[in-house]
């Protein structure tokens, strides 16, 4: 019995091993190796080993720290809101009621359009004389030139991110909610538990694996924000929207310095790993056991 089990287990695991071995491993190792060289794509054969020089340069480069702080701000400013909104929406559209499909589709619509097109749309919306400002002025609220104001540009992109990602994570929460057995709620209600009690003592704890997923994946994704910046602000104004990936993209594809870009990428990798580990510690833990 045990022998079978092991064979099945490894068979079940094999697709990933195979796919990664063929297509994933080499790029990872290559980038890792490149980070210790001055590899440039157009002078591939002339790459020289430079040791930790790239990493040292990153840690001393003001532009790197600026990109890091912008990225950190971005993550801190979006993850809590996206997660909360996605969960709230999922809870709202889970029960059966008229028109819940319309709502579910409606909330998902922002995720459907490609991020590049979405960025172009928002670029128009955020223009100084764009629709958003027209609305704000009608409400007598401040209407800055969102993408050109150094203080407003990053928040504007963050708002767009929360807007577009919430629906996406909503459906993941929906699936997670589905795995919670009904009986638990019925039993709790029989004992007189309120909605809040149900939520806090049944839903949340049992939703932990899904919550962890949303947090980890959204964090990883947010740390790599690129397309929106590329389309809407090119890293400006005054470098306030330059994220780590936008920074390393410029290094790789404008300065042709893939070695340095790889080093920055691995620093980002380390950061993602640390954050994921942190989230695992704080939120992690088994779901439906008892």
């Amino acid at each position, binding site marked *: 019995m045990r022998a079978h089990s092991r064979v099945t287990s490894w068979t079940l695991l094999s697709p990933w091993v195979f796919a990664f071995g063929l297509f994933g491993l080499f790029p990872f190792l290559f980038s890792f190796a490149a980070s210790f060289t001055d590899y*440039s*794509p*157009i*002078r*591939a054969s002339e790459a020289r080993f430079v040791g930790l020089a790239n990493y040292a340069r990153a840690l001393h480069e003001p532009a790197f720290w600026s990109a890091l702080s912008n990225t950190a701000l971005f993550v801190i400013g979006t993850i809590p809101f996206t997660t909360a909104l996605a969960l709230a929406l999922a809870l709202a559209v889970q029960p059966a009621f008229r028109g819940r499909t319309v709502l579910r589709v409606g909330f998902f619509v922002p995720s459907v359009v490609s991020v590049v097109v979405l960025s172009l749309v928002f670029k128009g919306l955020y*223009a*100084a*004389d764009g629709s958003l400002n027209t609305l704000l002025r009608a409400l007598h609220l401040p209407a800055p*030139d969102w*993408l*050109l104001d*150094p203080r407003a540009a990053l928040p504007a992109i963050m708002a767009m991110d929360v807007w577009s990602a919430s629906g996406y994570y909503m459906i993941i929460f929906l699936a997670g909610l589905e795995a919670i057995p009904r009986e638990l709620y019925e039993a709790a209600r029989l004992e007189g538990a309120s909605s809040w009690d149900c939520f806090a003592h049944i839903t949340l704890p049992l939703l932990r694996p899904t919550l962890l997923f949303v947090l980890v994946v959204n964090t990883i994704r947010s740390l790599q924000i690129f397309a929106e910046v*590329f389309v809407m602000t*090119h*890293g*400006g*104004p*005054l*470098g306030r929207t330059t994220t780590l990936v936008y920074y390393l993209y*410029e290094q790789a*594809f*404008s*300065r*042709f310095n*893939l070695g340095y870009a790889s080093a920055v990428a691995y620093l980002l990798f380390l950061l993602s790993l640390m954050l994921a580990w942190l989230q695992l510690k704080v939120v992690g833990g088994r779901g439906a056991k008892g």
Partner: protein
Amino acid sequence: MNARWSHAAPLACLALALIAGACTRQPARATEIVFWQFWPAEVITPLLEKFEAENPGLKVRMEQLTWDSGKDKILAAVASGTVPDLCELGSTYMPRFLASRALADWSAGIADLKPGIRGWEMCSIGDANYGVPWVLGTRALFYNKTLFARAGLDSLHPPETWDQLYRAAAAIQRLGHGVHGYGVSANDRQKLFKKFMPYAWGNGGEILSTGLDSARFDSPENRAALAFYLTLRKVGTLGLQDALDRDFKDGKLGLEISGAWLLKQIPNEVPTLRYGVALVPKPATDRGTHASFAGGEVLVGFQASKRKEAALRLARFLVRPDNVEALVEAAQSVQPATVGADTTAFYLARPNQQVMIRQFEFARFTPNHPEWDAMEAAIEDAVEKALYDTQSPPESSAAHAAADAQRAIVELLEKH
């Protein structure tokens, strides 16, 4: 000696191919030239078909690249060695490619073309040429004639000096109601530079010394130009290029420095707009030049390609005056690199396009230093900082900006 060989070589290849084809009694396989370029298929395909008709035995496989991500693809190809045979590169990418050993040396192959084509600065190092200029682009002053009339300005005499420019912009700015005088470019990567440097160059300013070995950016001429550029903000609005273009097309912007793409868009989108094109204003009637930015597209071959001769043949075909003209007339957003292009019927019938060509007389190409794009970014960042510094007087922000940029350029020079 070389020139004769380079003419003989493709013919010899063709001859050999034909002989080989006949000997093996199989249908002769055409040499396929892989050509990567950016123009839409309907613009370029007719030319390629014409080439194939004139060169039996040569076939062209054209792959179209997107403007904003095309270079990523070119880099990946070069890194892996699977390069196209002929490739279109923008003048912005040229400095780094020139510094690598990736491009094929065409010095001999194009020697006879030199007198008839402009823009060799984009693809040469010293006497060696690593490509051939195809089309060029510059920037000129676009002005709205209707707004000029409303502001009491003479729409037949656009501003020619900085002073006239400022006063015209001020007059239009005073019209209010969402109308602005001059469109100042905000930090738009690789675009802000082209809107500001014309003033600096026009004032006699430089970026690097002729030998590309020392920085000349922090000079009184550049500081004065930057100070002037900063004052334009008071009589205008700040925006990214597409926002300024859109405002200009909407008739809400009186003056802006922009490029030939507007000449294509305006008739399509806002045919009733009354506008004109003029040379970039110079510092004063008796001083400076109507300098502007010049860049363009270059056709290059790669060292790693196995069909270099065929690629050169295709390049020579594409830069023939009649073919470039066909391309430019279809695209309408660039100018030919051919000398004397403005004398053709196409341009004689289009005065605005003609101004673009005349602008080339005073236009400057960017230095071919390998770190050029980083220098350009440093200049743009410094100018941007000055633009956002609305508290200090223009002269002092200009001085700081020039010093900042100079420092960055010096650092970049030392890297080499």
